[in-house]
């Protein structure tokens, strides 16, 4: 295993320092280190952050390898600065058994670009009717601690209550996709001014907020951990803020796209903007940014949702919901949160690494950038300006809402336990991963 001396990196945006890593561990940090390393990296002007952790990634394998595989998805993750991703359970077959979660976990190990922590389905087949074997998934090699029916809401209050209670036995957490199904039948976009004008079925904010309100009360009642996926409305923020003020064990995430984009984009009827939960209003975007800044929302999670071209190049109602996001997440957060003065780089590290790792109980990730810690690091160039070119992505899919948009920043290098997965902005060849 090679050793690396990273020169003049600004750790969490602080003063420039050298970082020496070898044997997968940060060995030394200081100015003008004199240690001999196999490789020297000039990190002048680059920010060093702990490797990012994504709580919400759709890797699509098994079943939809036309959209993404564990290999291409984790390559995209590495290029985005991630060292760990949580793979969502809505694959084909659904990750609702120990067998499927172990398969995904092993595929991640084999790919080597970042750690893949499978999420297990809460209910069999994501059908919301019968609990999946949550304990078996936890006891498997994949050691599942996060359970979610994401894509579908666990809308039955009793099933939700039981799931919350049951996973307490192994410190699990239920990550809820909050969407009241009856209120969102035929829903195509945020219900509001724009949906009325466009004649597209509305997805009202209340359908998210009603479920979150119910779930935080359930979590409090049974004393279990609840995590709220992709919070998208100002009202949801208020409910979560209230629940946290009560001291209840509730955490929440927001996607990069909900921090930047609004439903006005749907006026184009370009299905690249179709996503679930839908893009909301400028007021919602503002509330989400404030909530991420003050910690009401704990984490940024990408909800990276690759789809093949044909599922987006069609009329709106026929299109699939979702956007790819791993390779643009940090840039979007820089634009929405850092350049607006709402978060500094320490805050970014907290919301994109420390807190998501803690929610997922990933012990080797989300650690401080300090001596003796595992060398999971990302070197990020915040001064870079460039337009988003989907064809340069590592993900197999191209459904990005940022095509042609100028976004700040670029990942220069990513290290997974001391091994570079990305260097000079390019993926390291698989054979070179030690």
């Amino acid at each position, binding site marked *: 295993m090679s050793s690396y001396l990273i020169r003049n990196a600004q750790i969490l945006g602080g003063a420039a320092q050298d970082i020496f890593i070898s044997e997968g561990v940060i060995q030394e940090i200081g100015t003008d280190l004199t240690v001999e390393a196999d490789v020297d990296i000039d990190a002048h002007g680059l920010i060093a952050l702990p490797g990012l952790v994504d709580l919400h990634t759709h890797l699509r394998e098994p079943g939809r390898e036309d959209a993404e595989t564990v290999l291409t998805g984790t390559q995209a993750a590495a290029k985005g600065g991630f060292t760990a991703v949580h793979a969502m359970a809505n694959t084909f077959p659904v990750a609702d058994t120990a067998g499927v979660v172990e398969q995904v976990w092993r595929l991640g190990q084999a790919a080597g670009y970042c750690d893949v922590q499978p999420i297990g389905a809460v209910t069999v087949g994501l059908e919301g009717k019968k609990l999946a074997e949550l304990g078996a998934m936890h006891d498997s090699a994949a050691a599942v601690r996060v359970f979610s029916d994401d894509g579908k809401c666990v809308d039955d209050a009793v099933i939700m209550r039981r799931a919350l209670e049951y996973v307490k036995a192994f410190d699990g957490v239920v990550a809820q996709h909050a969407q009241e199904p009856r209120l969102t039948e035929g829903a195509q976009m945020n219900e509001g001014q724009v949906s009325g004008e*466009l004649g597209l079925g509305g997805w009202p904010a209340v359908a998210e907020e009603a479920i979150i309100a119910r779930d935080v009360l359930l979590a409090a009642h049974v004393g279990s951990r609840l995590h709220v996926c992709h919070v998208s409305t100002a009202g949801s923020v208020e409910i979560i803020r209230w629940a946290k003020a009560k001291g209840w064990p509730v955490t929440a995430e927001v996607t990069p796209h909900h921090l930047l984009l609004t439903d006005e984009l749907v006026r184009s009827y370009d299905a690249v903007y179709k996503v679930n939960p839908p893009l909301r209003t400028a007021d919602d975007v503002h509330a989400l940014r404030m909530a991420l800044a003050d910690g009401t929302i704990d984490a940024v999670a990408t909800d990276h949702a690759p789809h093949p071209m044909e599922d987006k190049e069609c*009329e709106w109602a026929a299109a699939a919901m979702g956007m790819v996001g791993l390779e643009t997440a940090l840039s979007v957060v820089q634009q929405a949160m850092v350049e607006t003065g709402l978060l500094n780089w320490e805050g970014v590290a907290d919301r994109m690494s420390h807190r998501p790792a803690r929610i997922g109980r990933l012990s080797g990730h989300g650690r401080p950038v300090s001596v003796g810690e595992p060398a999971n690091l990302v070197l990020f160039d915040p001064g870079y300006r460039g337009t988003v070119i989907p064809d340069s992505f590592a993900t197999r899919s191209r459904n990005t809402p940022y095509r042609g948009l100028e976004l700040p920043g670029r990942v220069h290098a990513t290290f997974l336990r001391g091994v570079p997965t990305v260097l000079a902005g390019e993926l390291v060849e698989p054979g070179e991963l030690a």
Partner: protein
Amino acid sequence: MKRHLVSAADLSRDDALLVLDTAEELAQLSGRAVKKLPTLRGRTVVNLFFEDSTRTKTSFEVAEKRLSADVINFAAKGSSVSKGESLKDTALTLQAMGADAVVIRHHASGAPARLAQSDWLHGSVINAGDGTHEHPTQALLDAFTMRRHLNPGLGHDLAGRRVTIVGDVLHSRVARSNVLLLNTLGAEVTFVAPPTLLPIGIENWPCEVSYDLDSTLAKTDAVMMLRVQRERMNAAFFPTEREYSRRYGLNGTRMARLPEHAIVMHPGPMVRGMEITAEVADSPRCTVVEQVANGVSIRMAVLYLLLGGATLADAPRTEAPENAA
């Protein structure tokens, strides 16, 4: 004018008046023994209908034939579309066949917009109704009908005329196109519907909203009754057909509240006994049949202006000789 007609908002006041005036001139044709103009000879117009619509399709087809266009009917049912062909591949096929214009009716809101913005097709896209979004030629024919009754004359608009649109605004592409075009032409629009059948955010639309039909009729120059599908009842938009009919249907008693000159309109097909009684539908104030006739003139005008790209004065005025015998 723009190259496509996807939304009533694509039309400026001048564009809209040009369509109405052109339609007025073309309408004179229908009185002649030979109703055909050679204007679009050699041009290919495709009627791409993903949704059943005998009335609109027939209207477009008559308009196209009167302008001597080559007409291709591409019904989604019974074609490769029903076997899962994408909108994109259908469009590429039509492009390869040399379509100069595509008249599209689609069940998905935004499908015509998607075609118009794509590089799949180079011809003009004319929206013949998309989902619950828009139906701009219907709005044009409605405006044409209103102008004839309320402010006749070339170059005239509908300034100050009060139009009341009653019924299922939430699901109505006719209502959406009408509110846009009527505003462009200076009319004042009031929507009347139960609150469940009005879209969220309607307070920001350029119109008034009322839940009470009786109070608005006295201040109405044209009342347009929208079709209300009985199935809406099953999704709890209103309790029963009878209750809807009592509160929002137009019957003889209500019609009597209208000013003397006011007209009763309906985009068709009517559900007699639901939103309109037979007495009203068959009364001389009801313009339903007139609207159908006007629809042909309006669609001729739209095709003419989008494909001909010239004003009517430049058009050859001779009637097609091969039809003269």
